[in-house]
C-alpha cells in the first residue's frame, strides 16, 4: 500500500502533496508539512553529526516505523521527495526518480511556473498518479 507523497523544495515549501490510501486524514495539512520538513531537516543534521565516517552528508534511503516506511530522495538542487508506504513495501527509489523526472518534464520546463511555487499542474498530477498506481503494491 502506498499512502502518500510529499515534495519539498530547498526552502522548505511543500510543492506537492498527494495521498491515495490514507485512512486518518489530517485536518491541518499546513502544519503537517512544516512538521515533516522540519523532521527531515533535523534528521539529516543528526545523521551527519552521528555518522562514524567523515563523509556522511546526512542522506538516507528510507526509514521504517511500525506503521509505515518513508522512502526518501533528495536531488542535488535540494528538492526532497518522500513517499510513505506500508512497511512491507521494498525499495521505491525508482518511483521517486520517476517522479523527479516527471517534475522536470512538466513543471520545471514550464515557463509560466515560478520556481518555489506549489505545483498545480494537472499533467504532473496525472503522471504521478499513473506512476504510483502502476506499482504492484499500490492497493494492498
Amino acid at each position, binding site marked *: 500500500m502506498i499512502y502518500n507523497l510529499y515534495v519539498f523544495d*530547498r526552502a522548505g515549501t511543500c510543492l506537492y502533496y498527494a495521498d491515495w490510501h490514507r485512512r486518518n486524514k489530517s485536518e491541518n495539512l499546513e502544519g503537517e508539512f512544516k512538521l515533516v520538513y522540519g523532521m527531515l531537516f533535523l534528521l539529516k543534521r543528526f545523521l551527519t553529526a552521528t555518522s562514524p565516517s567523515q*563523509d556522511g*552528508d546526512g*542522506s538516507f534511503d528510507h526509514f521504517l516505523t511500525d506503521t509505515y516506511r518513508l522512502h526518501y530522495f533528495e*536531488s*542535488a*538542487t*535540494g*528538492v526532497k521527495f518522500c513517499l510513505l508506504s506500508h512497511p512491507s513495501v521494498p525499495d521505491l527509489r525508482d518511483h521517486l*526518480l520517476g517522479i*523527479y*523526472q516527471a*517534475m*522536470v518534464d512538466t513543471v*520545471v*520546463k514550464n515557463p509560466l511556473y515560478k*520556481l518555489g511555487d506549489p505545483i498545480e499542474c494537472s499533467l504532473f498530477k496525472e503522471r504521478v498518479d499513473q506512476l504510483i498506481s502502476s506499482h504492484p503494491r499500490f492497493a494492498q
Partner: protein
Amino acid sequence: MATSSYKRLGDQAFSKVEHINSELFMLTYGALVAQVVKDSEDAAEANRQLDQMGYNIGVRLVDEFLARSGIGKISTFRETAEIIAKVGFKMFLNVIATVGNWSGDKEYSLLFDENPLAEFVELPRDDATKALFYSNLLCGVLRGALESVSAPFHVYFFYTLLLLIRFYFIYLFICFIYSLRCSSLLV
C-alpha cells in the same frame, strides 16, 4: 571517477535527450543576441541581459541535467568541473570541453575547440559590439545551474585564441569583473 567514464556518461545522456537541428539553434541564438544588442544601450548592458537570461535558464536546466544523467551529490569542486565539461556540455550542446588552468582549488577554465553557438557569426567592429561577449548566455546558464546546487559562482568569459570560460568559486567576497575586448575573429 575517471574522465573516460564521464565521457561515456555524457554520450549516454546525449542519446537520451531529444535532438534538434544545430544550425536552427545557432541561428535562433544569433537572432536573440541581435535583438538584445539592439535593445541595449551598450555592450555591457547586453552582456548583463544575456547573463541574466542564461541564469534563468540555468536554474531550471540543472534539474533536467540531474534527472537525465542520474548524477547524485558531488563531493569535490574538481569533480563538478569534469562533470560540467564532459557530461553537461555533451548532453545539451554536443560539445566537450577540457578543464584546465587550475588556480588553487577554487578557479579553473573550460576550454572549447569550437564555439557551439557561433559557427556562422561574424561581429562587426563597431562600438555596440566591440565589448560584447556573444556567448554570454552560457556563462549565465552555468552560474544559475551551479548556484542551485551549491554556493554562488562567478563565471565570465576570458578570451585567447581558444574559447575559455573561467570560473571563480566565491564564498562571501565578490571577485573583480574583468572586461575584455573581443576581436572580430573571436566570438
